[in-house]
């Protein structure tokens, strides 16, 4: 087989072996049921998770709120919030985006739909049982792994089906170039089961001893972010940006460098959550170095995306997909550089144990990953249901509520956390001052929770309208404005 030309090999929209629109529509249609199942359930868990987060946030300034019942206590609602958004929303929506991208990039219709439908049902069952388990008091309070031991095997079985399906799809792909998004997806779908099984065996089923648990815990938790969410998010950005603006990715070699440096450095990051803790110095140092080295994949991807977008930023004015995706991609750069900085021991000592960390976590999980997921869903769902988004105004509301909400949350927690850290650091300042400093910022964070919940309600209504095909049929896609140039090939 003749190898494709350089440019053609890196851009899905100009590949010589690309599909005609009829074939592409058939492939999209074949993914319809499982992808919509994952998306629909994900949006449900997003609403549940936002509500749990909102209540937890207000409990931090108003501890009397809904107190007096074990199942409503802060120490159960907070992990319930984290696990529903991590497993119920972000993972499920990410799997949905991954399935659709795999089918498109392998250029074959989806195989074994039943396998994926079963996986979707099991996954949601696992999240439901696990969340109820936390609320009922069965959590072992291991962060990011709070789901009790009786629910995680259900999730693992669900995941095993998805992993097997990924390998089958890849094995039967149509010959041709393997696009950068596929590297990221394959890696994520192979890393996750290893990660999840290791952490569950060593922490939940056959717990290892002492502080070794904390090392495995943060190796797991940071890698869920770095080697599961991040590759899926980057896979989506690498696909959506060139697709919407209709030009190839800037540099194939930067794509390679970005991918391999991420794989190597990100996997070593976890111990930066434990700086100053009871561990051999080399373990913490290795993670600090790896965290600083994250500059390489992050800057590489940022340059690659920026150079691809250059001259086409006008498209942000009209394309919902692009606006959400570019917001997410830019936040990825920001949150990663912030993360590298937070791993520097002197700075870490100040902001560790403060609200600064949840601020950073939300910037990553929401500002980066969730916004990318929204962007991808705006692109994918019309192609599954054969219906256009009913209202550009509602999409605009969704975007601005989400963007302003996450901005308020991150800025307030970031500043409040630094003040809290200064209070912790200075021996002359009392513990009470750390609360007094943090409280006004926590109130702003509580308000931002309403904005985010509002954004999610708007999105849920839009999704229901799409699935039920409500409203008048539209001529073209829902755009914020008229495209300025004729180059636009997709939204």
């Amino acid at each position, binding site marked *: 087989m003749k190898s494709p030309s350089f440019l053609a090999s890196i851009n899905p929209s100009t590949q010589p072996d690309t599909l005609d629109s009829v074939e592409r529509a058939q492939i999209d249609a074949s993914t319809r049921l499982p992808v919509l199942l994952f998306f629909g359930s994900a949006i449900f868990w997003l609403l549940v998770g936002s509500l749990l987060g909102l209540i937890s946030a207000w*409990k*931090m*300034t108003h*501890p*009397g709120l809904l107190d*007096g019942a074990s199942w409503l206590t*802060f*120490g*159960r609602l*907070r*992990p319930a919030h984290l696990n529903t958004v991590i497993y119920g929303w972000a993972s499920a929506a990410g799997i949905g985006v991954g399935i659709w991208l795999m089918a498109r990039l392998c250029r074959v219709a989806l195989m074994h739909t039943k396998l994926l439908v079963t996986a979707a049902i099991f996954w949601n069952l696992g999240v439901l049982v696990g969340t109820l388990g936390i609320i009922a*008091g*069965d*959590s*072992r*309070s*291991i962060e990011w792994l709070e789901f009790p031991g009786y629910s995680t095997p259900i999730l693992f079985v669900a995941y095993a089906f998805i992993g097997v399906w990924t390998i089958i799809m890849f094995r039967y792909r149509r010959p041709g*170039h*393997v696009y*950068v998004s596929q*590297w990221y997806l*394959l890696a994520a779908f192979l*890393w996750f089961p290893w990660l999840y099984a*290791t952490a569950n065996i060593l922490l939940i089923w056959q717990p*290892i*001893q*002492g*502080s*070794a*648990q*904390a*090392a*495995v815990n943060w*190796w797991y938790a940071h*890698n869920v972010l770095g*080697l599961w969410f991040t590759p899926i998010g980057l896979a989506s950005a690498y696909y959506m940006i060139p697709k919407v603006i209709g030009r190839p990715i800037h540099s194939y070699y930067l794509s390679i460098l970005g991918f*391999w440096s991420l*794989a190597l450095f990100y*996997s*070593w990051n976890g*111990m930066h*959550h434990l*700086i*100053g*803790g*009871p*561990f*051999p110095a080399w*373990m913490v140092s*290795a*993670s600090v170095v790896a965290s600083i080295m994250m500059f390489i994949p992050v800057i590489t991807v940022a340059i690659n995306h920026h150079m691809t977008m250059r001259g086409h930023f006008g498209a942000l004015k009209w394309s919902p997909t692009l606006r959400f995706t570019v917001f997410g991609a830019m936040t990825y750069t920001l949150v990663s550089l912030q993360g590298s900085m937070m791993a520097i021991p*002197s700075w870490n000592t100040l902001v560790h*144990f*403060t609200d600064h960390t949840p601020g950073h976590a939300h910037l990553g999980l929401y500002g980066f990953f969730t916004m990318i997921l929204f962007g991808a869903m705006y692109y994918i769902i019309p192609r599954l249901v054969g219906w256009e988004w009913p209202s550009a105004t509602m999409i605009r509301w969704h975007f601005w509520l989400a963007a302003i909400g996450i901005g308020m949350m991150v800025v307030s927690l970031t500043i409040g956390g630094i003040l809290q850290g200064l209070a*912790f*650091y*200075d*021996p002359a300042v009392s513990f*009470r001052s750390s*609360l007094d400093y943090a409280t006004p910022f926590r109130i702003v964070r509580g308000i931002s929770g309403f904005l985010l919940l509002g954004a999610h309600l708007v999105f849920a209504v839009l999704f229901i309208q799409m699935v039920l095909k409500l409203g008048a049929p539209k001529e073209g896609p829902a755009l914020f404005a008229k495209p300025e140039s004729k180059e636009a090939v997709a939204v």
Partner: protein
Amino acid sequence: MNRMPLLFLGIFLTFASSWVGLVAYPYFNLGRLEPLTDEDTGGYLPPARPGLAVAGQRAYAANGCVYCHSQQVRFSPLSTDIQKGLGPRQTVARDYIREQPAFLGTMRTGPDLSNIGVRQPDVNWHHQHLYEPKTVTDWSIMPSYRYLYRMQKIEGQPSDDAVRGLRGPHAPPPGYEVVPTEEAKALVAYLLSLKRNYPLPEAPEPASN
């Protein structure tokens, strides 16, 4: 990138490197530390934990105390944890060998509890605090754990374990008393067992505070 074996090998090896370093190594090293023998008393360091305190650790997990309270004292001069009075020395791996799980924590929304058993050895104080935190600290934002307590009518003599000195809207009216459930007693036993002030050779106390 079309060399698939290379792609798969790379995906495997990069991840395996961190698995070896951050999972397998601590498993075989930190995970196999033994307690030391205390030459003065013939006991162990860290001391064994009473059964009630072990049950209390489960209550600590079930109610999510770890989301606001850390249990680690970082070393000087990296941090000021020791000057702040969190403990006389940094906490080290051996301190946690009996912990299931090790609640190192990531937040200090509330104070660090590495040595709460030393700072606050009074059982009744802990029950007051868990039942209604504002009874002992009026600016506290800790939630009330009164679902771990029973309010009951005093029949004859007040119960021995009734919580004394409660104030605020949930204080028992005259003729009533608040008694801890087994879970509350276990939780307090666990909190009182948090004393990481025994000497360990690998963690000398800093010469001057």
